[in-house]
């Protein structure tokens, strides 16, 4: 946890340095003041000594010998004491040349004992000085030899001067320095605070912007215009963020491109790391496996095949694949290691939806099965009858006629089956041409109805046709449209009861659409099988369909749907299975045609 921020540290450091400086200054000043005071006092005391010395010399100049001078000095020490006291402001003591006290301040109870100083002065013959403390007051004690002109020591003068002035001065200095220190600390604090602002502001900006960058905002810029070290740092930082921003934008662009590529893939993709962490998926994974945002391969725990494949890849097995059914889809899962320059190994699992191809296979198998069955049935009949005719002489003309009719009928049925198969193949391969012309749909339907009445008479089914007048023309292929309506009406006839009715109605629905309704009142379609009626070879009632005179192969509505969906232009004809509101579980066929030319 951070205890002190940079600004606080700056302030504290400045204060401490300032205090240290002031203490050093105080120390130096105190030493200097003390030294100067003592030195000045020393000089003054020495001057007093010199003055007295000269005075003594002047007074004793009348004497010839040193002894006379010494005697005179000792005998008149009080006079000399008075003289020296008149000069000095401190205490004075006079000593003889052996250090014995001659005169001192009679107001004192006892003289000051300057024995140490005397000893030293007697020994060296020079003035000596000591700093002493007396009752808490510091004093300077000085002993100065009194000499004759020929350097004979007459005696000694001792002077004591208190240094209270120096002490007072030191106290004043303490107070002044102390006050200056306090004022200085305040100024330093304010100045450091302000100065710190200049230092910490760009750093805070750096921090803030780094935080934003961390959250993904790479377009932030630090505003700092000064040309100093921080300015350099911020300039480089700004360039760095700009570069990062560019790289991020590039990466995002590439990622988006990659995501688009992945999204546009028709296969599901899972990139997984060696330890099972999902590196990458696309949305088809959700579609196929109903798993949202998987983190690890083990999220696919309900799809063991995936995990098994992953484990096999981990074991070093290459190019694994497996076909599974998931949620109604046939999926082909393949896995392989991802080639990489780095040591780590990742794996790529591709999931391909092979449902349609599987369905196609199934349809093909079913088709072949149906075709073979459809082919076999009439062929078996034809072979049966021809075999019978060839092996037995048939005298019964009725039997012979029946046999020949049956052979003929089954033959025609085979031809129709082949025709239907060819048409279905043509539709699927889209090899036939479409000729678009303006079509009067009312006329077309009328022709189709007249054509189909021939077939409906056999079951006494009435086809009622009603068309709205003054309908506009549409664009389309006359033959293909005719084929479509023929197949639908044919289907209606097949599934209507004898004596039933088929209504064919042509109306205008709106500005863009014509409505064609072909409604029968027959057995209807089971709702459960409504989606299957347009499938190839689908017949609701196999036996009924086959035993009917026509005997369809189940391709009629399949062909209609193929033509409508694949051959006609989009939205020219929409084929819908409209729910009859009255008969709720039966469906009627209804079509809408787009008015292409207006």
């Amino acid at each position, binding site marked *: 946890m951070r205890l002190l921020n940079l600004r606080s*540290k700056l302030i*504290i*450091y400045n204060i*401490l*340095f300032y*205090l*240290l400086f002031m*203490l*050093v200054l*105080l*120390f130096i000043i*105190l*030493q200097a*003041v*003390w*030294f100067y005071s*003592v030195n000045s006092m*020393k000089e003054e005391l*020495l*001057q007093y000594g*010199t*003055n*007295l*010395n*000269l*005075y003594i*010399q*002047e*007074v004793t*100049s*009348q004497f010839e010998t*040193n002894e006379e001078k010494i005697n005179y000095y000792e005998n008149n020490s009080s006079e000399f004491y008075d003289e020296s006291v*008149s*000069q*000095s*402001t401190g205490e004075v003591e006079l000593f003889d040349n052996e250090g014995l006290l001659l005169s001192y301040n009679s107001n004192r109870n006892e003289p000051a004992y300057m024995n*140490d*100083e005397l000893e*030293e002065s007697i020994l*060296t*013959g*020079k*003035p*000596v*000085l*000591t*700093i*002493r*403390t007396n009752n808490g007051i*510091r004093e300077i004690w*000085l002993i100065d*030899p009194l*000499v*004759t*002109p*020929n*350097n*004979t*020591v007459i005696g000694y003068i001792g002077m004591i001067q208190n240094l209270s002035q120096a002490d007072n001065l*030191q106290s004043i200095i303490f107070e002044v320095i102390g006050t200056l220190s306090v004022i200085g600390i305040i100024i330093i604090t304010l100045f450091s605070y302000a100065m710190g602002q200049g230092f910490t502001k760009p750093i805070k900006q750096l921090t803030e912007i780094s935080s934003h960058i961390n959250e993904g905002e790479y377009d932030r810029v630090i505003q700092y215009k000064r040309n100093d070290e921080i300015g350099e740092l911020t300039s480089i930082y700004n360039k760095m963020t700009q570069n990062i921003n560019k790289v991020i934008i590039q990466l995002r662009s590439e990622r988006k491109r990659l995501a688009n590529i992945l999204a546009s893939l028709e296969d599901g993709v899972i990139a997984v790391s060696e330890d099972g962490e999902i590196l990458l998926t696309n949305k088809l994974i959700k579609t196929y496996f109903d798993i949202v945002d998987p983190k690890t391969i083990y999220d696919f725990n309900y799809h063991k095949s995936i995990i098994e494949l992953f484990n096999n890849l981990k074991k070093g097995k290459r190019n694994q694949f497996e076909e599974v059914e998931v949620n109604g889809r046939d999926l082909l899962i393949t896995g392989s290691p991802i080639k990489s320059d780095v040591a780590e190994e990742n794996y790529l699992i591709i999931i391909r939806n092979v449902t349609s191809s599987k369905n196609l296979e199934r349809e093909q198998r079913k088709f072949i099965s149906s075709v073979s069955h459809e082919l076999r049935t009439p062929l078996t009949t034809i072979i049966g009858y021809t075999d019978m005719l060839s092996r037995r002489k048939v005298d019964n003309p009725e039997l012979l006629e029946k046999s020949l009719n049956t052979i003929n009928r089954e033959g025609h049925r085979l031809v129709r089956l082949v025709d239907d198969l060819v048409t279905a193949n043509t539709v699927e391969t889209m090899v036939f041409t479409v000729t678009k012309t303006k079509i009067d749909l009312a006329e077309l339907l009328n022709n189709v109805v007249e054509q189909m009445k021939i077939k409906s008479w056999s079951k006494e089914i009435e086809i009622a046709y009603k068309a709205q007048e003054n309908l506009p023309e549409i664009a389309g292929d006359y033959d293909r449209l005719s084929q479509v309506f023929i197949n639908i009406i044919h289907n209606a006839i097949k599934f209507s009861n004898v004596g039933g009715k088929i209504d064919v109605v042509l109306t205008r629905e709106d500005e863009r659409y014509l409505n064609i309704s072909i409604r029968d009142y027959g057995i209807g379609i089971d709702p459960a099988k409504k989606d299957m009626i347009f499938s190839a070879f689908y017949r609701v009632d196999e036996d009924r369909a086959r035993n009917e005179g026509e005997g369809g192969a189940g391709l009629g509505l399949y062909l209609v749907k193929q033509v409508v969906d694949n051959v006609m232009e989009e939205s020219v004809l929409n084929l819908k299975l409209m729910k009859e509101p009255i008969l709720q579980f039966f469906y009627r066929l209804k079509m809408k045609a787009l008015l292409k030319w207006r």
Partner: protein
Amino acid sequence: MKKLFIALLLLSTLILTGCSNFLLADNTVLTIDTNKKQEFIIKSMNTEQPGIVRAKTNDNQVISTNSINDDYSIDLYDPNTSTLVNYITTDYRIFDVKAASDGLFYSRVMVNDPDNIQINWFSFDKATERTITTIADTPDSVLYAYDTDKVVYLDNGNEIVFSNSLGQNNVYTLDFPINLKEIIWCDKAETGFLIGNQDGMDSSDLYQFRINDDNTLNVNKISSNTLDMDLNKDENKLVYLSQNGNKTFIYEISDFKSVSPTPLFSDMNLERVSYNGENLFFSRSENRRTQSTIWFFDRQAQSANQVTSPFGINSPIIVTNNNEIVFSFDERTYQDVTASYQMYSFIANFRFDQNNQNENSPLQ
């Protein structure tokens, strides 16, 4: 930061525990190395004669004045014999006395006119005494005598007057009035010097003056804050004291034409200077008791040595040719049992011998 704290702590402890005498420890006896050398040995000292020293005569006698009660006297003091010979006695206050070779000039209060000053001539043979002029009352009425019987003084505040014993005057007018403190005329160089302050000024300045061919005065200011001066007539050298800040400098002018002062010495509280050409003496006031000491300036060593103990010097320092200095000093003398003091002035006559002692010789 930790080191900083420790440094602060140590320094604070050092200071607060009273280490202010770091360089001078308590209770430690320190020997003071002094290189005192006594240049002169006092051979004799005489302070018995009363009077105020005024000037020196050509034959090394000292002129002094004295006053007792209401009597004023001009005396001649012989430093050799330390005797005083009365010369002139008068009832009127005497201001200044200066000696020419044949006699002396003195200024005194004028009879019956205390606002004016009378300048008198008195020949040493006592044959002649006359009043040569009257001047307006000026402080101290300073005179300077030269030649046999000539004197120069200031009149009317701005007129420099040259007179002789016959009272013949030559007057030269200054451009500004001045309160004269001292005046000197060097006849050989035909140049003079005066110290005075103009009205409104606190300090006195040193001026050099010359007489132009057209009898006008040419005056140049040489120095400010000038306290005293002295002329060595034989060598035409002037020394003067000039104060600069809290120090006083002794300057010497050797060339009166170019007048480029040379600093010789400086110290605090210098008051008066005396120059006999060879030896230079000056007085320095001691702060206590307003007394002064006399010092000798060693030109070779460029150092000064104290010569006398403190005296209340109240006169110029006269240096004779015989290693004598003569001056007068004030002394308070206990007058009577009622503890009153009276100031007396005495002439101090110091005779010195050169100190030939080896400065390193041990004490005896």
